[in-house]
Each structure stands twice: as structure tokens, then as C-alpha cells.
């Protein structure tokens, strides 16, 4: 593989990109993920994404292509880690409970789905806003209780909760609209 840092004469095809960067990407992912199978899956998925949604301005050089692939793969790793950590968080919570209070398998699936969803929805929120939202909603604490934990006013807590709720609502609205469009197109 000779990835010489020469500019591309014309926009490279996906085939070219694959030939030049796939094995580099897989090696890079394996170092980060510490697992060959995960790395192979993810490298494959990265190229699938590149086909579905090409880089907006194309690539002018192999270096640019690698930088793009690397940041895309980095984002995918973060998502994967998040999903695994969420699953682990749920398992840890369960294992802290006596056996007889363990929820049913269906219930667990619902909880896990909700956990993945909330973790995705919280993305981009500040740590305090996310914390205020979790404490207010999941733990059912009042705004003044949350405020004294976080060292902010209860007014600020309400602002955080509203901010996080709005984000969740918008995500839900976008999802509903997309589903409606799909069902109408079908």
C-alpha cells in the first residue's frame, strides 16, 4: 500500500479509497478497540457510510481522506463505547439488586432501549444540564434539591430541564415525522 501524500488528480472513487485506506483504517481501529473482529466490522461500516453519504467536498489528497475516515471512525468508536458502557451500567445496576427483584426480560429490553435513547439524547448537553435532567426526571428530585446538589439556583435547574426536554422532544418529533414519511411512502 503506497499512500504517498500526493494530491489526487481527480476525485477518488470509493474503490480507490477502499484499496488505499481500508487496511490502514482497520489497523487503526484495532489499536483503539483492542479487538480484531470489532475493528473489521467497523472499518466495513465506515466505508458503507462513505458510499451512502460521501464527504461533502470530496478529497483532494490521501491525507485528507485519512483525516476524514479517522474522525468518522473516532465518532463510531465513541458511539460503540457508549452503547457498551450503557449496557454495562444496566448490568451493574441489576447486579446490585437481590435476584428476586430483577425485572422480566421484556422489561429489561424496554429499559435498555430507553437507556440507549437517553444517552444519545443527552449528547451535546453540558454536564450540569444532563445531570439536572437525570436527577429531576429519573430520580424524581425537586428543583431545589437538585439545585443544592449542583450548586445552582432552582430556577437554573428548571432551565436545564427545559433545555434537555426540548432537545428530547425535537428528536422525537423528527423521528415521528420520518416514520410518517416512511409509512406514507410505503
Amino acid at each position, binding site marked *: 500500500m503506497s499512500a504517498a501524500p500526493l494530491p489526487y488528480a481527480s476525485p477518488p472513487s470509493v474503490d480507490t479509497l477502499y484499496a488505499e485506506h481500508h487496511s490502514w483504517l482497520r489497523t487503526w481501529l484495532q489499536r483503539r478497540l483492542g479487538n480484531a473482529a470489532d475493528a473489521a466490522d467497523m472499518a466495513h461500516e465506515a466505508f458503507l457510510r462513505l458510499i451512502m453519504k460521501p464527504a461533502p467536498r470530496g478529497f483532494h489528497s490521501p491525507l485528507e481522506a485519512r483525516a476524514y475516515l479517522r474522525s468518522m471512525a473516532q465518532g463510531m468508536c465513541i458511539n460503540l463505547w457508549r452503547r457498551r458502557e450503557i449496557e454495562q451500567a444496566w448490568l451493574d445496576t441489576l447486579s446490585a439488586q437481590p435476584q428476586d427483584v430483577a425485572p422480566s426480560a421484556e422489561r429489561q429490553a*424496554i429499559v435498555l432501549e*430507553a437507556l440507549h435513547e437517553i444517552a444519545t439524547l443527552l449528547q451535546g448537553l453540558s454536564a450540569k444540564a444532563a445531570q439536572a435532567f437525570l436527577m429531576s426526571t429519573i430520580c424524581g428530585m425537586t428543583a431545589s434539591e437538585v439545585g443544592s446538589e449542583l450548586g445552582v439556583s432552582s430556577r437554573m435547574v428548571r432551565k436545564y430541564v427545559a433545555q434537555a426536554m426540548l432537545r428530547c422532544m425535537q428528536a422525537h418529533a423528527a423521528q415521528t415525522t420520518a416514520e410518517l*414519511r416512511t409509512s406514507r411512502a410505503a
Partner: protein
Amino acid sequence: MPATSSIDSVQPDSRHEEDGPSHEAMEQAAHWYALLISGEADATDRARWQTWLAANAQHRHAWTYVEAVSQRVLAPLQDTPDPTLLASKVHDVHTRERSRRRVLAGLGAVAGLGLIGWTGWTRTPIVGVLAAWTADYRSGIGDIREIKLADGSRIWLNAGSALNADMSANLRKLTLIAGEVLVSTAHGDARPFIVGTPQGQLRALGTRFTVRREPEQTFLAVYEGAVEIRTAASDTTTVIAAGKQTRFSPDRIADATEADPAREAWSRGDLVAWDLSLAAVVQELNRYYTGHIALDPAVAQRRVFGTFPLRDVDGALAMLADVASLQVRKPLPWWISISSRDATPSPAQSR
């Protein structure tokens, strides 16, 4: 989208669905939600929210998203064995993800900084409603629990309530953390029987009584024997006799009034309404229902008479619909909407 005055215009499959509510309506809905769950909303706020909801279809549409998020994402997480632990773990995941993304964005973030506040939370003694999750006894939404205490006393925990019980050599003490408890003390035990709330302590004098935590005060109704109230801030004591009820704050005890015997009917799973407003009945039923019950303000003040099963909210609402000539609809599985059956209610059923 025209503003309409009836709850009936909420249709999840309305043709406006694709447009979605305006950003403004979504923002307002999010702010209402934040206020309503803050523990700081009073009756006026809730009435204003109802007015906002009734004002136009965009508002109600925006609110359906609040409902959707609460029911699909938040409710399953609340209803877990240890929501506090789960929430703290979700926050850990969020914090780690944030620092990873910050590194990704090349901002050179100091990883772990965001953890400080959280550690503070997990180590601080639990407070308020949070304590309910670790209480000795607690009951979920729509769940009335009868408990026999070690001394032979019997207590009934109303829906959504929690308490700690501490039986020591010289004292029997219950601490009501949330909701309402009906106590029937055992006879022949010399140890004092105390129920504590943030507003004060109640000492049972051989008795059967109800204690309920309200936002800023404690409600007490005595059915048998008597109960002595000692308020938290002023140390004032007052004995409330059987057949009386009162409310007290840390420094003041209201004048006692006649106790409503129907108030303890919940311990048998009944809601006895004797000339109650529909709004009050719905508020009570809401304690037993995990979803949202929307009541058209036009019918909120109708008077209701009857006994309704608390363990079967759908059944109770069907009975209500029957006796009060109401239309009960479920636009969404978690949303019950109650409005007038006809545009002009007959005089016999409204006042």
C-alpha cells in the same frame, strides 16, 4: 392552525402532524414540563398550564412530545430497581463521552473534570424524594400497600408513598418521606408511636389516623383516638381528637375541621366522592395512573358523587363518564382526555 377551545381537537394522526408544532410551542411545553416536575408548581401554575394546554392545538401537539418522551424514555428508567444508581451511571457514561468528544474536537479538554459535581452528588446523603427510593417501605403509582409492623400496628401506604420505620426499645417511629399513610396502632404497647414529617411530629394516642405530605404542609385526619401534633419550628403542641382533621406547617397548626370519613376509603381501594369537583377526583385518580389525564376546564368544576375503584382507573373513568355525562377518550395510550359529552351540558349535571 386555528385555535380551538375543545380538547377534542387533539388527534395524533391529524393532517398537521407532519408540520409539527411551532418551535415556540415546543419551547413553552418544555418549560411547562420543567416547572410541573420541579416541585415548585402550585395550583395556580397547574391551572395556568391547563389554560395554556386548552388555548390551542399547537400547544397540545407540542405537549404530546413531552408525553412521548416521558413515557417512552423516562418512565421505564424511573421504574427500575435503583433509579438513583442508574442515573449516576448514565451520567458517568455521558461525562466520559463528553470528554472523548472534546478530545475528538481537538479542544484539549481535561478529562474527568466534569466528574467532580457528580461525585459530590453520589456521596451526599440522599434527600427528599430521592430518599423514597431507598425507604424501608414504598409503593408505586397505583399501588396501595398494607403493611404489618413488628409491633402489630397496621399501616396502609397510599399510591406513590414511602416511609421509614424505626422500631427501637423505647420508641416506634415512622418517617413519612412521600405521599400518605393510614396508621392503625397496635394496642398494649407502651412505647410512644410517632410519625415524623418535615413540618413536625405526630404522637399517636391509641388511634387510627391518616398523615399526608403536601408540598409545604402536613395533612392529618384522625378517625379514632387522638393525635398530638408538635410542629418542627415552634414546638407548639395541639391534640386533634377523633373526627377532626387539620393541616400544619413548621410553625403553625390550622384550626381543626370535621374529618371526612371518605378520606380513608383509599385504604380499601376506593375513592369516595361526595360532592367533590371533577378536578379533585381527577387529581386523585392521577395518583393511580402512570399516564396523563387531561381534563377540559369547561367540566372541571362539575360536582361528582359516587364510589370509584382506585385500582382500576379505566373502570373508574368509565363510571365517571356515565354519571357525569362525560366523554373519556384515549388519544394516546398514556393520555386520557376528559371532556363534555355534548357541547352544552345539561343543567342537571353541571352547576
